[in-house]
């Protein structure tokens, strides 16, 4: 039995408290992402785009007369997508067609395991670290998992036996490959500056405001955002599912629950990307100019343990607030910019962003040498 379980360091003596803590964190992240954020983003996308475009937006679905600003529309979406006929086109590769959405959704969720949504606190003598898996390869894990979701889209495009989805699938493959390379290189600057890949250490290093990633790596930030948008297939890089060209690209032949999966995958990826963005460039759970210790003294009157709980809650709240802010900005970009053409995306990816990220690495190296 022992060889099945991974090494002892994951399960120190007295497994029960750390197991409970692990499960609590997983449940918290799963409910926050899958339960709250995905449906919430459906509503945010509708309401925000409406207000941006001088419209009113969703306000009709109501229970007992309460429309709750249209929030119930996401409920109706869920009901609609669950009850719709789950249609597999004739001539399509049935198992692959069925499998593709799962390959697209699951990685988006897993990638969030590495992102710390809070610092280190000792509650009743038990040190907790608010991250599900505190891997020291941190960011590389995110890239690895993100590239798996590419397979989901490509298989969906190939298995649907439809010219449009085939074109969509080909475009997904080309775009994702070229931008994963660029995304990886864009973040090398951050690793050089903080000297580690472990996201929690980067979070701790960003305690003082001036050490936030965005100030140390502005060019890296711009490149990363562009590649993240391309990874997430959102405008202006949404050429795989360009409505006006390829009808709905690789998920043209999907309906019902499987379509909801692709839709969910897109939102989850957006949350994950905002998470990585906030964790690396905007100080994760840190509040500018207010360090964790200062907060603990502020809540001192509550007694040591409760103070730590209060600080933890504040940090988690700040983290999610930053993520919401970034989702708002990503949505703004989504609605205002026109879409690239296929070859322009490739040209931008290989000819502009890749060389720029290499230059960024060079410059960071030089600056760090001078500083040392």
């Amino acid at each position, binding site marked *: 039995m022992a060889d099945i379980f991974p090494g002892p360091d994951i399960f120190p003596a007295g497994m029960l408290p750390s197991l409970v803590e692990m499960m609590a964190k997983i449940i918290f992240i799963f409910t926050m992402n899958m339960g709250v954020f995905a449906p919430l983003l459906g509503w945010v996308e509708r309401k925000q785009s409406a*207000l*941006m475009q*001088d*419209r*009113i937006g969703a306000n009709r679905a109501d229970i007992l007369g309460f429309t709750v600003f249209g929030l119930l529309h996401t409920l109706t979406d869920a009901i609609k997508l669950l009850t719709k006929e789950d249609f597999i086109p004739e001539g399509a590769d049935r198992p692959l067609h069925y499998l593709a959405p799962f390959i697209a959704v699951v990685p988006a969720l897993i990638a969030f395991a590495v992102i710390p949504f809070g610092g280190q606190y000792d509650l009743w003598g038990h040190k907790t670290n608010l991250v599900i898996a505190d891997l020291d390869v941190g960011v590389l894990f995110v890239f690895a998992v993100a590239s798996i979701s590419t397979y989901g889209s490509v298989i969906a495009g190939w298995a649907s036996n439809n010219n449009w989805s085939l074109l969509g699938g080909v475009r997904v493959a080309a775009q994702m490959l070229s931008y994963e390379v660029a995304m990886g290189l864009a973040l090398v600057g951050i690793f050089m500056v903080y000297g580690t890949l472990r996201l929690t250490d980067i979070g701790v290093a960003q305690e003082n405001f001036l050490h936030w990633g965005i100030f140390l790596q502005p060019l890296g930030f711009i490149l990363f955002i562009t590649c993240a948008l391309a990874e997430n297939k959102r405008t202006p890089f949404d050429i795989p599912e360009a409505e006006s060209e390829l009808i709905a690209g690789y998920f043209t032949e999907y309906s019902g629950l499987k379509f909801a999966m692709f839709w969910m995958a897109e939102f989850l990826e957006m949350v994950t990307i905002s998470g990585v963005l906030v964790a690396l460039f905007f100080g994760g759970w840190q509040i500018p100019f207010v360090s964790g210790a200062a907060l603990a003294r502020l809540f001192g009157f509550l007694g040591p343990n409760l103070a730590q709980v209060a600080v933890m809650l504040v940090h988690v709240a700040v983290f999610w607030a930053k993520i919401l802010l970034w989702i708002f*900005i990503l949505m*703004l*970009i989504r609605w*205002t*910019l026109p879409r690239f053409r296929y070859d322009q995306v490739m040209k931008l990816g290989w000819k502009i962003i890749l060389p720029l990220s290499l230059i960024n690495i060079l410059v960071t190296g030089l600056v760090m040498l001078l500083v040392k």
Partner: protein
Amino acid sequence: MSGAYKKVNRGVTLTLWERLYFPEVIRGVLIAAGHFVPNFVSVTKAYFGGKPSDRKIMTIYYPEEKPVLPEAYRGKPVLVRARDGRGKCVACGLCEVACPPKCISIVGGQREDGTRYPVTYVLNGAVCIFCGFCEEACPEEAIVMSDRYEGLCEYDRKPMVYDKEALLVPEEKLTRRLDYIRRRMYGKWNY
């Protein structure tokens, strides 16, 4: 008068600053946010007690708020019922002839006091294109384009064929349109 052919300046040379994609992402986002913030404020203000007119948004909450229709609006054609309860239509058949898609059919008759009236007056609402030619042709101002646009669609065509009873509307309700016709459309000073 002056004014001639003027070259359009396509040479919109992008400064290096604009050649980068990023600045005009910011400009686009700022314009969109410029609409978002005032709308967001005005919607929340209107929601919590403010009047709907506080909203600067273009669209309205349709069933609760109705759009303001201009006088010239051409809705469902209706027969005018005079104050004494009798329809003004004398079954002359001009509207039947003037209607381009031929959706009106009349069978005329005579009352005992010698005045003519339509025994049956059928207007097929499914075929009518709301062009207003019947109103223009009618010498008696008996058929008029009301400003009714709601409840005209049905799930099958039979109820859309209106008979005389479904078309008759008392004159008091149509004064706005009747006086518009006299003032703006077929009045003497228009010639």
